[in-house]
């Protein structure tokens, strides 16, 4: 089968669904049918790219010259397929969950919601398949814009404030990225993502290298939630929960860390990173973020906000793994992109199910809910265990490689950070589980049962996936093989 155009179709399919979604705004079932259809087609399209990606082939499609010498190019390399697979796969789960959540919550303007969601997914897949920096920026800004209507969805004062905050952070980031790209282009004459970097032959001074790197970091670091650029993320929890689940645990924030890896591995390259000590900057920031975010998570009583801070911490696991500049560390990082996705989406799904079903947002109100919502809380327990790094959930596997990567580089501090943060994870998740299972619930719980199957099935599904990937990371999609292949192309490119 001819695969050349598959990346383009994968990007466009959800965009093509938008008019259908808008036209069927009066018929909710038909409207959601388009979303699911687009989701399934998108996933299958990405799946057809998997075999070639596993062999290390790169499918490149040059669409048009968007600026002189800079083509708009889609490139499905192993890393891109890896990210696209996660985003499109979890979109299907989220779509089902959205139906249960949005209808259960009687949300308004659902058409706008589903349409924006579809645009977000197109942008995310576009980011995954971007072959050069300018293409990346185009989809990156599209994602910013398409996420905005979702953040302000409830149109409450809080949501609008969160939307403004979100825009001011992400638009600034986009501009820094443009500046970084411009300088890179004027130095190297190319914006291509090349394994091992494009700065190899350039005479960089130390100040120049640090400046460009910081500009890049400002650009991708906002979406990656690296402190001190993270504070939009907890505010953005004002969005409906499915948005928090897919976008603020998977698509948007992972686009940020995806960008970090593209910048480190494909623009600068490990050698240049090490030469100018750029990885140290990254390591300090990420290490700091992991610990502080975990501590801040303790202070949150709102369940979604606690999850948001946990996300900030875990995103920096990935960044720290990249900063180690060891092959094993990078494998751990890349696997954590997918594994954190399945775990955190489960937890957000649970938080949303609790909110719709019991109208409870705060952790202090969760006493005894496991009796009412056994499936949801079981899934929640699995997700929390995984994030704390307890086997057999998949979080253990990626964390193992992250720690091994640190040791491979002869660095002890990162290992300590991973261990301490693991304990902190236990610390802030365990009280929730304890309340739900062992404390006696109030009278308001009577008469309530488990949430709608539209929510429970997806959330339990992702929990089961988390365990399955923990038992065998190569199950279904060969996540481990793909991660190692990406890491080895970056480190053995010369």
């Amino acid at each position, binding site marked *: 089968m001819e695969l050349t155009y598959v990346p383009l179709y994968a990007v466009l399919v959800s965009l093509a669904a938008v008019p259908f979604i808008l036209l069927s705004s009066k018929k909710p079932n038909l409207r959601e049918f388009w979303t699911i259809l687009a989701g399934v087609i998108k996933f299958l399209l990405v799946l057809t790219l998997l075999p070639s990606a596993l062999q290390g082939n790169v499918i490149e499609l040059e669409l*048009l*010259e*968007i*600026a*002189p010498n800079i083509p708009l190019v889609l490139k499905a390399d192993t890393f891109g397929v890896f990210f696209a697979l996660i985003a499109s796969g979890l979109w299907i789960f989220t779509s089902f969950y959205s139906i249960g959540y949005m209808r259960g919550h009687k949300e308004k303007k659902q058409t706008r919601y589903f349409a924006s969601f579809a645009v977000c997914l197109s942008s995310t897949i576009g980011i995954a398949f971007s072959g050069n920096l300018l293409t990346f*920026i*185009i989809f990156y*800004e*599209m994602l*910013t*814009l398409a996420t905005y209507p979702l953040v*302000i969805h409830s*149109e*409450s*004062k809080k949501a*609008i404030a969160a*939307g*403004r905050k979100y*825009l*001011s952070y992400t*638009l*600034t980031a*986009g*501009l*820094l990225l*443009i*500046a970084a790209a*411009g*300088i890179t*282009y*004027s130095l190297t004459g190319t914006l291509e993502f090349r394994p091992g970097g494009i700065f190899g032959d350039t005479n960089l001074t130390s100040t120049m290298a640090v400046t460009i790197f910081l500009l890049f970091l400002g650009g991708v670091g906002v979406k990656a939630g690296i402190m001190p650029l993270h504070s939009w993320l907890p505010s953005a929890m004002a969005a409906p929960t499915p948005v928090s689940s897919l976008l603020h645990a998977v698509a948007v924030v992972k686009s940020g860390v995806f960008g970090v890896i593209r910048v480190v591995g494909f623009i600068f390259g490990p050698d240049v990173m090490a030469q100018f000590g750029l990885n140290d900057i990254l390591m300090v920031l990420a290490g700091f973020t992991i610990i502080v975010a975990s501590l801040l998570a303790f202070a949150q009583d709102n369940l979604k906000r606690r999850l948001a801070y946990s996300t900030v911490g875990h995103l920096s696991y990935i960044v720290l793994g990249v900063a180690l500049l060891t092959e094993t560390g990078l494998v751990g990082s890349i696997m954590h992109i997918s594994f954190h996705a399945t775990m955190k989406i489960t937890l957000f799904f649970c938080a949303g199910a609790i909110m719709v079903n019991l109208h409870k947002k705060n952790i202090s109100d969760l006493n005894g809910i496991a009796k009412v919502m056994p499936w949801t809380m079981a899934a929640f327990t699995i997700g929390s265990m995984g994030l704390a790094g307890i086997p057999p959930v998949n979080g253990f596997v990626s964390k193992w490689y992250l720690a091994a990567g640190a040791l491979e580089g002869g660095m002890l501090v990162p290992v300590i950070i991973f261990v301490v943060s693991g304990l902190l994870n236990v610390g802030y998740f365990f009280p929730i589980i304890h309340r739900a299972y062992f404390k006696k619930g109030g009278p308001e719980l009577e008469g309530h049962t488990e949430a709608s199957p539209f929510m429970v099935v997806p959330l339990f599904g992702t929990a089961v996936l988390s365990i399955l990937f923990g038992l065998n990371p190569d199950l279904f999609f060969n996540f481990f093989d793909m991660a190692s292949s990406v890491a080895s192309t970056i480190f053995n490119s010369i």
Partner: protein
Amino acid sequence: MIGSEIPALIPVTYVLFAILIPLIGLWKREIVWHLSLLGTGITSFLSAWGFLHLINTGETIRYYFGGWTPPIGIEFVYDGLAAFIVLVINTIAFLVLIHSKEISKLEFPGKKMPYYTITMLMMLGFNGMVLTGDLFNLYVFLEISSLSSYALIAIGEKRAPYASFRYLIIGTVGGSLYLLGVGFLYTVTGTLNIIDMHAMLPQVIGHSSVVAALILMVIGVGVKAALFPLHGWLPDSYTFASSSSSALIAPIGTKVAAYILFRVLLFLFGVDLIDDQLPVTTIIGIFAGIGILYGSIMAIAQSEMKKMLAYSSVSQIGYIIMGISLANPFGFIGAVLHVLNHALMKALLFLVSGSLRSKEGHSLITKFNNSYRKKYPWTMAAFTTAAISMVGLPPLAGFFSKWYLALGTIENSNWILLAVILISSLLNAVYFFRILEKVYLNDPEEESTEDTEIIENNEVGFTMMFPMAVMALGLLVVGIFNAYIVNIIFTMFPAGF
């Protein structure tokens, strides 16, 4: 072959229609609108034809009036840059005039005939300024366009004549300074022809008259282009003029003035000579940079949409002049591309404000609310497109002019101007998202009215919607296919790049 006559045919068409409209208008009032469309339609067609002809042959057309060769006679120089600008301004004028049908009924019902006559004269002036190859002839066209735009602005709200008078005073001073500069140059070089003078300037560049001339011309043209701090006339003029006049003058007038800066700085003096005596480009760059920020900040402070757009114009013209001041290929590309992009964006935005005024009777941002989303879905969609392009988000056109300008600043290692471009985009986001929030979202302070009140679709008619839709689509097309345009701009480079 008609191709070589095009430089003359375009202004002649405008002269013809400037005479036809009052003659026929006296007899049949209703058809002046159709006549003005016919006039701009013909010139748009001619400019498109000429532009394509020029791309295909790659030859600059030099048209000698009356067969007199320069430096004795006056010539029109139809090169890539002139052809491009002429195409942009005539097409924009055509689209804006389509939109003016409804506006003319509402805002100046008894003055249609003079309005369209003056419009033709103004377009004659603008086209002449772009096409002419003679500095004094340029001044003549400058005055034609200026006098007609004073009149055009005066046809507006109650305060319009006052704003117009102010513009008249400042504009006349500007024009005179330009003329004085031309006079100084003439005394040293003995010629008024741009190409001729360009060849002579290296021998006299150290002469104090040349330095004085350069300063006078830049200030004079700077007034017309509303380069900060010479922009004082602009905000009131654009605000109080009728919506059609603002939509016509804002995208075209200042662009043509900026075009003269292109000619004077990069073609007449050229990159080699321009900074020979004084750091002219640096100084212009500084003022452009301040203007960009000042315009954006003032735009945020406005509560009237047209006034906001007027200040935004001050800022955007700064982009173009900054691009010129960089005096490098990327800056040039960015500036030329931004002439097109900003013409599309600003015309579209002024048309939206005009459409809103025709329906709501005002364009006060404070009174905007989320019923507009249902009442004018397509107008608002067009507005959103223009707003996003102004903010500079890809893949819309605005992003790319910003990208090339940014590359231009990087090439000169001018980090301050790079920061200015980026910060200004954020400021644009502030004043446009403020409106978008009002139009698309419920006001959380108020009770939601949406469920209780049924809002009827009250979209503007075809003659208003069509030009707005074309421009909105244009922004997308120009954005995606900007490389084709940029490849053409490559052929317009002045010598020395």
